């Protein structure tokens, strides 16, 4: 697809070139001129549709500076919140009569190594039983300073979820009552679900060869 005839559309950085993502050997497929670009960074503007506008109306007056951007995608709304303001925003989301997100469905970490300055993400899914609504709150932290304030005080259910995210991604939740590893052994080194975590290959008994690690094999994506 060419974007030449679409004025003003920013060119996203290149994700990969060629068909199979292999760099160590020549590409015999003839696809080596293929360029795949990163998906654009989404940001939605009003009206958001559905109940999303009501949620944003109840949240934005008090926390306009805390919300970096809002994304409405595939019928779900995501509030990107500045990490310093996270506990206040969460408390407001839980307690405000127009919001009432009583139930948190935990924390999920994601690692985007190519997004400089916002590599680590903590994603919170909240559910309001009073209004029967769902939203997503996303917080980012750079790899160099992987700190996000803990929200265990607001949602006690985040206790284990934050430990899990720390265990797998190395995000340090400041203020967590006991931030220790939960799934991996206590003396484990590294955080396995980060994209830069080294994976092991499998040695085979043929001239000392080794089956390469999964992230080093030829792949389509």
């Amino acid at each position: 697809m060419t974007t030449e005839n679409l004025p003003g559309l920013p060119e996203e950085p290149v994700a990969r070139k060629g068909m199979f993502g292999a760099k160590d050997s020549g590409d015999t497929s003839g696809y080596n001129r293929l360029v795949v670009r990163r998906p654009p960074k989404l940001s939605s503007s009003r009206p958001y549709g559905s109940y999303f506008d009501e949620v944003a109306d109840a949240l934005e007056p008090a926390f306009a500076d805390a919300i970096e951007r809002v994304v409405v995608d595939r019928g779900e709304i995501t509030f990107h919140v500045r990490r310093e303001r996270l506990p206040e925003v969460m408390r407001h989301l839980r307690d405000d009569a127009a919001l009432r997100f009583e139930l948190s469905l935990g924390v999920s970490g994601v690692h985007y190594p190519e997004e400089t300055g916002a590599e680590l993400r903590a994603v919170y899914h909240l559910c309001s039983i009073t209004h029967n609504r769902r939203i997503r709150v996303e917080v980012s932290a750079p790899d160099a300073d992987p700190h996000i304030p803990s929200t265990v005080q607001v949602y006690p259910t985040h206790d284990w979820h934050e430990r899990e995210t720390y265990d797998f991604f190395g995000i340090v939740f400041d203020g967590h009552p006991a931030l220790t590893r939960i799934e991996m052994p206590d003396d484990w080194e590294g955080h396995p679900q980060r994209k830069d975590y080294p994976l092991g290959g499998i040695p085979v008994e043929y001239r000392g060869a080794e089956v390469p690690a999964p992230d080093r094999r030829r792949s389509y994506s």
Partner: protein
Amino acid sequence: MSTTETEGRIYDVAGQDWDELVKTVSESADERLVVNMGPQHPSTHGVLRLVLTLDGETVTEARTVIGYLHTGIEKNMEFRTWTQGVTFVTRMDYLAPIFNETAYCMGVEKLLGITDRIPDRAQAIRVLTMELTRISSHLVAIATFGLELGATTPMLFGFREREMVLDLMEYITGLRMNMAYVRPGGVSVDLPAGAVDKIGEFLKVMPGRIKEMRKLLDANPVYTRRTKDVAYLDLTGCMALGVTGPMLRAAGLPWDLRKSQPYCGYETYEFEVPTQNTCDVYGRYLVRMAEMEESLKIIEQALDRLSGPLKGGPVMIEDKKIGWPSQLALGPDGLGNSPDHIAHIMGSSMEALIHHFKLVTEGFRVPAGQAYASVESPRGELGAHVVSDGGTRPYRVHFRDPSFTNLQAVPATCEGGMVADVISAVASIDPVMGGVDR
């Protein structure tokens, strides 16, 4: 055996020297005792470890240690295609595999934007298999619970009935468990001939079996004394700890995603959401029993549709870029195959062969973005957070497993109670360690 460490005296019973242990413990002046229960213990539902601080027979502190069954499923999925992911997620909560598959597939379908294009027959089969699985999962919960309290009859009853469900699942999918039956876009294969009759027979037998079990347990004084007013957790506690499922409904809140945020066409089925307001183990038992009865109603309705208006419909999305091309049929040799399709790709169409090869080895691409899909599993809200970077493999999949979250309620339900009630409390949470640790 006993040794003195900095934290106090440690007693070790590795040599089965119980007499010596009792003697040395009784000599000790310290009333506070820390007992390690598990990870290999018959009543901790798999490899769960509990560290209990006891004062006499009262539990003053209960700590839960998990991670013994962590297999890195979420990481593994990042190196397989979207369709292969189903084979991984089905192994998470191994007592309710269809729910894991459905939640994951709903997430992928949301990312693909094809949620509305899933055939009705596929949705009805999903509902049917999910409700069958709910019955089998609840049966295990009640069966193992009985066994852990020392009653073998509920265990034998429960597993006998569960076997009927597993036989049905084997007949429908080819496997008893971990069947990878639900796929992005529909289900892998249509119901085999005779499945409707077999499920019909099951529907005739099962209500009587549930009644039999209720007769045995509902008013059994031994059972009620071990369950009533034990492991109390009220609505506030449930909300704060993120507890969902039968535990929440036993605290009086009729929150069931099948009713409140319907998916797979649940809004078209008639059923009730059973609740209790006792907040205790007995209430959770009653909720599970009533849910099985409701599941039977849903199965009956799904079966009527599958043998009536939805008969002969497609079970996979009619999009050749997503749905696998072969219409699999279970042959007499027990292997799934499709002679017509093989004749087509091997004999007449080179393009069809290329297409088949590309779709199966490379997989389909999913537009970049993230989605969260949730289903009401037998243990509560099972959510799948699925992230794509636009490639043929998941960028990140996270499962919000209800067992993981509900297990956080162990200290809240056990501390201050008797040590024997810890067993009831943990069993009433019904954690499945495969789902907890993933």
